[in-house]
């Protein structure tokens, strides 16, 4: 009996935390599957969006934060636009990724996370994204040197990837914004 109470308790707190952080009322979900039916990346996720909601309701925190789903979501907002209960899973996914990062749970889709890191660091350096250095940074982080070489080369040959970054003047301002946001 005690273990049942325990499960319900942890379940509730993870659900409450996910609700609070995302601002979405996850208790309203009645498993209609509309979100998953329209999700472009659901076929590649280990847990489909509707199941993710159910698992959050059940308090299965480790599985949710350790899932590939939270990284494979591309924030297309199809789910949020169509959910009859106005649950925005795209927004929820941002909150779940944030929780996973804070708790130090390794991203199941490591490369996706590393690419995002490389992108954001590129903004931090120059105020704007510079594709060439961003991609080199990503390749060094992921040590995945072979994937996607051809499209990259095609862009380079078309003169679409400038070699040198263009830095903005307000780099100090950007740095300050980063520092304040990273502290919170």
């Amino acid at each position, binding site marked *: 009996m005690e273990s049942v109470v325990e499960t319900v308790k942890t379940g509730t707190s993870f659900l409450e935390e996910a609700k609070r952080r995302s601002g979405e009322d996850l208790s309203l979900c009645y498993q209609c599957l509309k979100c998953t039916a329209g999700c*472009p*990346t659901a076929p*590649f996720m280990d847990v489909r969006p509707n199941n993710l909601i159910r698992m959050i309701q059940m308090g299965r925190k480790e599985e949710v934060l350790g899932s590939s789903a939270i990284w*494979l979501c*591309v*924030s*297309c*907002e*199809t789910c*949020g*636009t169509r959910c009859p209960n106005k649950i*925005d899973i*795209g927004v929820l996914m*941002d*909150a779940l*990724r*944030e929780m996973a*990062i804070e708790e130090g749970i390794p991203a199941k*889709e490591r*490369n*996706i*996370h590393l*690419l*995002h*890191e490389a*992108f*954001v660091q590129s*903004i931090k350096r120059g*105020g*704007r*994204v*510079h*594709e060439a250095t961003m*991609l080199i940074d*990503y390749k060094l982080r992921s040590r995945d040197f072979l*994937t*996607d070489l051809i*499209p990259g080369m*095609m*862009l380079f040959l*078309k*003169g*679409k*990837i*400038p070699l040198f970054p*263009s830095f*903005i*003047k*307000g780099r100090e*301002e*950007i740095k300050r*914004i*980063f520092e*304040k*946001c*990273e502290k*919170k």
Partner: protein
Amino acid sequence: MKFSYFPGCTDHSTSYEYGRSTEAVFRALGGELVEIEDWNCCGAAATHSINRLLSLCLPARNISKAQSAQVGPLVVPCAGCFNMLKRTEYALKNDEAKRKEIEEIVGFRYDPSFEILALMDLIVNRIGTEKVRERVKRSLKGLKPACYYGCALVRHPKITQLDDPENPQYLDRLMKALGAEPIEWSYKVDCCGADLALTYGNVVKKLVGRIVSMAKEAGAQCIVTSCGLCQANLEMRQEVDLPIFYFTELMGVAFDVEGRDQWWKKHMISPKRLLESLGLA
């Protein structure tokens, strides 16, 4: 007709031809675009995947600069950048605690009357298709484009407040005003896979393959888009050689503006043969 203008990082790289055609078309319509001074990256999806507060503050710096320049509403050609700026606008307008936090971090006071417009919306609804039609020198008659809106322009509708999220029409109306005959199809708001292109090329290939083959099956000769990332994905991850235009490029053809060869050179799938076959090269 003066507007503040956010070109976005890809303006000088992957969507060079979008930037140049935007400027040319806008000049032809008698408007003036004033670039936001020292603008920064909108943050894109990568930022809100890592730090949500940062993803609101990066666009806010641009809003702050555009607002104080007092040139007019802010115009954004790229659908992706537009979406990020509108997400920040939504937080500034609807969440007082967030607004105060953003204002404090970025160091400005938000003016709720300040407008942020997608270039497509501005052209279709403010300038109006009638004015566009008057400016057409060579009708795009015979051209059958599939109008592709993707995600960022129409979703989430409470944020972008632009067109019908399931069956949008703005771009279709614009193409008709140019004389083209846009086809009816059911993939106009399906996602292309966005930045998964760099980590999961095969997933994007699948998603793009479906979009492009459905366009072709519906009788399209090309696809028209308004997003830098969609354009790159559709052009580089397909296997059927369907040309992918930015909508401003087709406006440029109809308006007969100068410098178009420079745009076509930047395409992975040259649209020249298609344009020649319709006498529009």
